[in-house]
């Protein structure tokens, strides 16, 4: 058991205001680690720092023992750290099939090849089809991604992320805006397609968090209040005051 991801005293200030303040966090290989906290606590910013979208103002980030806080987005993604987005982020003008194929092409590093046609690369087509089957979207493969229902778009978003075969996955509010039914479907999907992966998940739905997570970290005003097992977090006094409030009373 070792730490796949380590944040050491990460800070980020944007235009004078401190968004993230000396956050240290370690994610153990194989665990599902939930990141919770009220709106504006800095959860998405933290994801943006880890994935290279923002550069930390201070501190270090290690992924599999190597520093990544100055690597660019695509370099970090290539190392095996993938993310999904809070606001659905797919290629809306392209078909479901093409969306998935884009991920497969990138994963096998064919994305800059210019000596052959993309069409007819059997290996790519087969792998794409496999992943579409896994997220149950094979029937909709020719539909434009932008015309899918919200739940299906979220599933596609998750599928694209998982198709990269990452070692560590950051999921940013996978169930945001979903009906109860869609939520349980997506939770099943997460369980099924993230087997044997390390997962960091930002989530507001406490049922989902306590059902999935092995460990939980609570972020409040850009600082980590506590990290622990779901049981420990439930009993933590500070956390109760700041965030969970009456949730378990």
């Amino acid at each position, binding site marked *: 058991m070792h730490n796949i991801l380590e944040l050491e005293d990460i800070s980020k200030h944007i235009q004078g205001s401190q968004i993230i303040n000396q956050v240290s966090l370690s994610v153990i290989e194989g665990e599902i680690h939930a990141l919770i906290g009220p709106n504006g606590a800095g959860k998405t910013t933290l994801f943006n720092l880890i994935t290279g979208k923002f550069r930390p103002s201070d501190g270090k980030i290690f992924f599999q023992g190597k520093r990544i806080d100055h690597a660019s987005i*695509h370099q970090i993604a290539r190392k095996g750290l993938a*993310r999904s987005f809070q606001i659905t982020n797919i*290629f809306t003008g392209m078909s479901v099939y*093409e969306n998935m194929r884009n991920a497969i092409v990138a994963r096998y590093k064919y*994305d*800059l090849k*210019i000596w052959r*046609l993309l069409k007819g690369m059997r290996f790519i087509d087969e792998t794409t089809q496999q992943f579409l089957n896994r997220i149950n979207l094979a029937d909709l493969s020719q539909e434009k991604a932008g015309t899918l229902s919200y739940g299906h778009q979220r599933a596609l978003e998750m599928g*694209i992320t998982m198709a990269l075969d990452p070692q560590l996955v950051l999921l940013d509010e996978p169930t945001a805006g979903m009906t109860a039914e869609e939520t349980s479907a997506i939770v099943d999907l997460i369980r099924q397609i993230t087997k044997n992966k390390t997962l960091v998940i930002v989530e507001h739905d406490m049922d989902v968090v306590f059902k999935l997570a092995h460990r939980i970290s609570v972020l409040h005003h850009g600082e980590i209040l506590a990290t622990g097992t779901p049981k420990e977090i439930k009993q933590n006094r500070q956390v109760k005051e700041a965030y969970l409030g009456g949730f378990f009373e």
Partner: protein
Amino acid sequence: MRRNLTILLWATVVLLALLCPFFLPRYQLYLLAEVMLYAIYAISYYLLLGQTGILSFGHAAYFGLGAYTTALCLIHLPVMPVLASIFAGSLCGLLGGLLVGAFLLRLSKFYLALGTLAFAQLLWAIAWTWRGLTGGDDGLIGWAGHKIAFPFLGSLGISNMLVLYYLILCFSVGAILLCWFFTRTPLGNTLACLKSNSDRAQFLGTNIYQAKFILFGYSAFIAALSGSLYTLLTKMVSPKVFDMETSFDVVVISVIGGYTKFAGPILGSFLYVYLREYLAEVTARWQLIMGIIFISIVLYYPDGLIQLFESGFKRINRSLRQSNA
């Protein structure tokens, strides 16, 4: 079915182009050669704007680099074969494209467009002022006597319109096929991803800067090829090849024909050359009418006139399928 129909259509166009010299006067051949030359130029621009969504206001830079390089080769290196001069022009454009790419590709949309404009204007200024090399505003002339050695046919002069016509036809078919292939490679697909959602493409692990860098080189290579052929066709080169009008010609062609479809720029080149020719016969202020046409197309056919063709094409396809069933 649809695919067969498309191939049939293209084959007909090429066949017609091959047969044109048998029934059209020389002057018309010149115009058609110009259409093909513009088609190459506009297709190279399609790779930027249509495929990747990059707006450039300085595409004349590569056109001009091709034109001047080929002209200089023809003048100063008479032993160099004409085809090699054309290739040298394209290569020079490629280098120019890579240079522009290296400097500008991290800029966002409009800054990038202005950056390309600045680069083209810089080359324009050099062409004006470096009289020793470029002849300044007198331009360059003096290669009408060159000959190209063909297998079986012997050596034929480039002042022969028929030779030029077929030469340009060959190059334009080649260049268009090359670009068509490019849009369908994995890189072409990646560029389409950049247009759709470049943020997501980066998170998939794609080095979007490298992708754009290759694109700039490729597009410039093809654009410079059209410039080189222009040198052969017009037999003179002046700083005009670098100016803003040449840069905006390609924007106008793309909008008239439609820049979201591969065939759009080709149709656009045809319409542009003929419109310009016949409007100029009617009035010296032909740009005024061209402007009105341009604005109307932007307003009523934002996808370009290729839209009309496409809907007609679909109708034929549907009726064919029905009669088959």
